[in-house]
């Protein structure tokens, strides 16, 4: 549980794909200005968790509240307007649109006069995007696309950024750049919910973490608490646990 005022609160969340349970009894909180990571192996339910928060899938049971308001049954675009931006798995670059058009779409929900300046700011902050602003986004490398979708999500001025596997398919040096960027975003007070298979990196950068496996939270706490926990390997790799599920 976070010490800070809870921004996102997930309680007893269950998601099913037909008869197959993807998540069951998930409790999770993200505090204001906090970076929380969710780690776990493939098929643990991490992407489903973010999809439920972003409104892509509907929960079978449980509650999701953001700033005290329920997000259950909210359309995807209404959730964006409440202040939650998702950078989806596989990046979700709109390949046939230019870099600049992708960034403009990031500011879809905004009507303020600062949009143009903010787009220019990100084009300067990510020089490769600035240099290739009129090129189709599909021509960018994986790392460049990752920069683009993070900048695009930030242009909505979100209060909470959801990131799904931002290091997936990237070279180690590019992963370093992405994580440096996340670190600087955290430094600016942005709340982040990060989903990663790369547990070592995610645990290192996050204020708190959750280990998800088989659709359930197996462990949660700060990095040192999770690493030190006797059941960490079992929780992460889905080995039999003797009923001692949560560390906190």
């Amino acid at each position, binding site marked *: 549980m976070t010490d800070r005022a809870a921004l996102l609160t997930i309680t007893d969340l269950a998601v099913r794909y037909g008869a197959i349970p993807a998540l069951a009894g998930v409790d999770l909180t993200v505090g204001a200005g906090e970076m929380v990571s969710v780690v776990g192996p493939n098929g643990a339910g991490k992407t489903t968790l973010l999809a439920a928060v972003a409104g892509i899938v509907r929960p079978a049971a449980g509650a999701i509240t953001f700033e005290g308001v329920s997000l259950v049954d909210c*359309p995807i675009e209404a959730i*964006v307007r409440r202040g939650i931006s998702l950078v989806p798995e596989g990046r979700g670059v709109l390949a046939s649109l230019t870099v600049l058009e992708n960034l403009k*779409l990031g500011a*879809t929900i905004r009507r303020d006069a600062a949009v143009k300046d903010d787009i220019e700011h990100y084009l300067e902050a990510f020089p490769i995007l600035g240099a290739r602003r009129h090129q189709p986004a599909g021509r960018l490398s994986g790392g460049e696309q990752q920069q683009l979708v993070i900048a695009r999500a930030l242009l909505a001025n979100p209060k909470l950024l959801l990131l799904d596997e931002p290091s997936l398919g990237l070279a180690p040096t590019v992963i370093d750049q992405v994580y440096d960027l996340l670190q600087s975003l955290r430094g600016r007070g942005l709340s982040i919910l990060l989903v990663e298979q790369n547990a070592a990196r995610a645990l290192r950068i996050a204020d708190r973490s959750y280990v998800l496996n088989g659709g359930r939270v197996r462990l949660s706490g700060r990095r040192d608490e999770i690493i030190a926990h006797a059941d960490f390997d079992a929780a992460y790799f889905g080995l039999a646990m003797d009923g001692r599920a949560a560390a906190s």
Partner: protein
Amino acid sequence: MIDTIVQILVDAVSLGGLYALTALGIGLIFGVMRLINFAHGDLITAAGYLVFLLAGQSVAVAILGALTVAIVLAVVTERVAFRPLRRADPATLLISSFALSVFLQKTLILFVSSRPKGVDFLPELQQQVTILQVHVQLLEIVTIAVTGVTLVGLSLFLKHTRFGLEMRAAAENFRVARLLGVRADRVIAQAFAISGALAAIVAILFTAQTGIVQPRMGLPLVVVAFVSTVIGGLGNLTGAALGGFLVGAISVLLQSLLPEDLRVFREALVFVAVIIVLLLRPQGLLPARGLRERI
């Protein structure tokens, strides 16, 4: 010789333009909903009947009437027939569009009967004009000009307006577009409104060319336009327009080059040409990039 070539070219661009505009109407809806809307033909028919009803009024009134009825009908059919099925699979949507088409046709027959009716719309455009020493019907020149202006206007709208950008994003990946805050209901309603406007433009030109309206007048256009979108590459608007012009050109060329006793097979040969194109390029001439599931 040169006048025959120019005449064939004018005919090909004129007919291809009508197919291209119809294909764009279908392609726009396919882009945002992954729906092949066969009821698009009935939008053309409804607009054609408005031209018939208002032909005695001023040209502007008839055109405005046709545009209004097609746009309103397109938006209403989206709201009533397709929005409740938005999460259904594409086959369900396709059947729904057939059902809607039959419903609109039968309703129209109920009020206006199934017999064709003559329309004397824009008779002044039937006159011949001489361009480069070639006699061409003025209506064909107007058709080409209107098609050109509409294609350029649509292209500018899609490329340079906020709404156009949202539509292109939704056409490529609707889920990602929604994750960026693009409103699904609005972007789909917009696409239907534009497809209605395109249907009305086709109806006005087609009615002026043929001089008749009848309850199934839109169907052959939609069938050819559907084929055009497949040839061009489903989901790619440039491809849809290109496919329309190509089918129009093949059709006119066959009409001109085939011996008279073989001309009855013209349509069959057009579809043979379509099969050949699809065998060589199954994804169409300009396959859509990054086409994803809808909504």
